[in-house]
Structures are given as structure tokens and as C-alpha cells.
């Protein structure tokens, strides 16, 4: 999506198929390069992280959202604005813990796995969309929110839905002192 100078802002959309195929090729190549599933997952997470630290500014620049004042606001923002903007789906949000720092995003549609029906037997613990987890983790870190993001359930592994869990690592009071 490059913008050439002098043109009005048009959204040049690259075909979604191309993106999904590219992602699939990436995962397939990583599976060839690494034997263990954990290595592939870590690699995907790292790649997602380096995407996330750059994507966050694009998100903030385009959506012009205000600073979120609580973890639940943040997760709502991720689900309703960010996912909508970048992936095209809106996951539902649920809060998992009483402490208010564990949340889940439940996706019923995941465009990245449109063409994948199930994981091969030798790759049973592969998290196919782990890139997304890395993206969310990287993006949150750039706005000073440390979080752990993992897949709690995955339709590709036979679960009913795909669920991404976000656990914020710092206590909510610490946020007030994090300024500048």
C-alpha cells in the first residue's frame, strides 16, 4: 500500500488472496526450516512483534483514537477498531479474570486460515496465526503496556472457536506513573 506523492489518498488494496497465500507460504517455509513447532511459533511471534511495533503508529495515525484509560478500553479498541481496520473481522471480547487484566478475543472468522482445513499430524502444536499474537504484543509494548498474548483455543486444532488471550503484566496503578 504505497502512496505516490501528488496523488489524493486512495486506498490501493492488494488482493486478500495474495496476502493469505503469502502468509501460508511464510508458515510453510518456516516449517521446512525448523523441525520443532515451538521454534516456528517463536519465529512467527518475533516477526509479528516487529510488525506490531511499526503498525501501532499507523493505527494511531489513521484512527485518531484517544488514550485508553483502562485495560478493558484497550482491548475493546483492539477488537473493534484495530481488527476491523486490518483484518476485516470484529472479534468479541470477554474478560477472564477478576483482577481485570486477562482478556480474550474470540474470532469466529479468521481470514488467514480460509484455505487451511486442519494442521498436518506432525505439526499438531503449531500456532498458525501466531503472527497476530506478536503483532498485538508489539503494538501494546509501544504504548507502554506489557502483555502476553497467546492462542488459547484454535479451530485448526479442533477447538470450537479461535481464542486469543491477552494478559496484561503490569498492575493498573503503575500506568498512571508511565508518562513520557
Amino acid at each position, binding site marked *: 500500500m*504505497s502512496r505516490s506523492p501528488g496523488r489524493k489518498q486512495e486506498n490501493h488494496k492488494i488482493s486478500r488472496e495474495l496476502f493469505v497465500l503469502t502468509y501460508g507460504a511464510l508458515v510453510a517455509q518456516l516449517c521446512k526450516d525448523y523441525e520443532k513447532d515451538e521454534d516456528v511459533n517463536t519465529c512467527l511471534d518475533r516477526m509479528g512483534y516487529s510488525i506490531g511495533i*511499526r503498525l*501501532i503508529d*499507523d493505527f494511531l495515525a489513521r484512527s485518531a483514537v484517544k*488514550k485508553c484509560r483502562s485495560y478493558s478500553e484497550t482491548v475493546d479498541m483492539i477488537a473493534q477498531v484495530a481488527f476491523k481496520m486490518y483484518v476485516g473481522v470484529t472479534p468479541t471480547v470477554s474478560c477472564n479474570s477478576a483482577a481485570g487484566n486477562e482478556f480474550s478475543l474470540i474470532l469466529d472468522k479468521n481470514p488467514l486460515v480460509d484455505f487451511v482445513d486442519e494442521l498436518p499430524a506432525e505439526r499438531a502444536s503449531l500456532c498458525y496465526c501466531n503472527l497476530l499474537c506478536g503483532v498485538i504484543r508489539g503494538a501494546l509494548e509501544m*504504548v507502554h503496556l506489557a502483555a502476553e498474548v497467546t492462542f488459547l483455543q484454535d479451530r485448526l486444532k479442533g477447538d470450537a472457536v479461535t481464542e486469543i488471550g491477552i494478559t496484561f503484566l503490569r498492575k493498573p496503578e503503575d500506568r498512571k506513573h508511565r508518562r*513520557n
Partner: protein
Amino acid sequence: MAIFSVYVVNKAGGLIYQLDHYAPRADTEKTFSFPLDLVLRPHDERVVVAFGQRDGIRVGHAVLAINGTEVNGRFTADGKDVLEFLGNPANYPVSIRFGRHRLSSNEKLMLASMFHSLFAIGSQLSPEVGSSGIEMLETDTFKLHCFQTLTGIKFMVLADPRQTGIDALLRKIYEIYSDFALKNPFYSLEMPIRCELFDQNLKLALEVAEKAGPFGPGS
């Protein structure tokens, strides 16, 4: 030229991008005979006009060149002290060029870090929690507008006090940064921005904002 310069400061307070947009101020070159009716004094590493403003030569202007050759700070090109040279009647008539001294890149780096610290102090002094920090610094000759993103990057624009639409311009610069700097895979975060596309698009955005001018809303 209503927008003078753009500064981008990273989270640590280091200047990562700077653009001077104003047309170079007119330098004034005049021939003088002894005695010189301007009062000159040394200031930092330069010789500046302290009194005797006339004909486009203003107080604060520095001596830029003598007899066509540029001076090196307080010394002429052949190593003589400028004030001594101008105190000697044997050197007259002499042609001196005066003008505003441009900031060197080191000076700009220092000023950017200083502003970063002031910004931090400003937001802590705020009586209300969650202050946005310094958004505007106003003087009689320019206004400095600052926008800090939620990720800690600061965009500063120095513009004419009458220039409107700077808020929209700051948001646009943020977009341009997120497009041409961040999406460039060879650009490392927090490092000086050396992306040609970023320069081009930024200059374009500045021109658009200037055209909209003080008469209407910015783009």
C-alpha cells in the same frame, strides 16, 4: 513562507529528523568606510551587530563575509580576528555581508533535547492528571506547535503566528511518518530518518498547508 521548520524527536529526546522550509533570509552586503557606524561585539563563536541597526542590517545579525570571503566564526579566512580587522582604518573601504546565522546541526540536536526535557517537566507540572504536555509555544515572530503521539514520538512545527491548520498538519506528518519511515523495512526505529519518500511527502504536505494559509482551514 509561513512554515519555518519541522522537527521530529524520538522517545529518548534525540532529534531524528529536521527540515528547514523557509527561504534563506536575505543577506545584506554593504560597503563601509572608516569608522564603522555599527557596534559589533563577539557572541558565542560569531561577531554580531549589537547596535546601529540600519538598511536591512539588524541587531543580532552576524558577520557572514568580509570582502566576499566568508568568515570563519570570529576570524577572517586568513586567520585574523574580525574585530581587529575592522578596527584598523587601513583595511577600509571594506564590504561586509550581514545576515542571520543559521543553526548548526549540533545546536539543533541540543535544542531538541532541551525541548524534550521541558516538555516532560511541563506535563509533570500540570495540575491535572494526564496532561498532554506542551502543545504550543508562542512568541511574537513564530509559534512552535508540538504533538506527542501515544508512542512517545514528538512532532514539532515552527510556523508563522498567523498560520492556521497546523494541528491538521501535525496529524498529517504523523501519517507520513507512519507510512514512509515506519513501513520502510530498512529503517530502524528511533534512528535518524533518511528516507527520500518521507522528505518528498513532507515537503508536499507543507506546501499544501501553506497554500491553505491564514485565510482558511488547513488541509
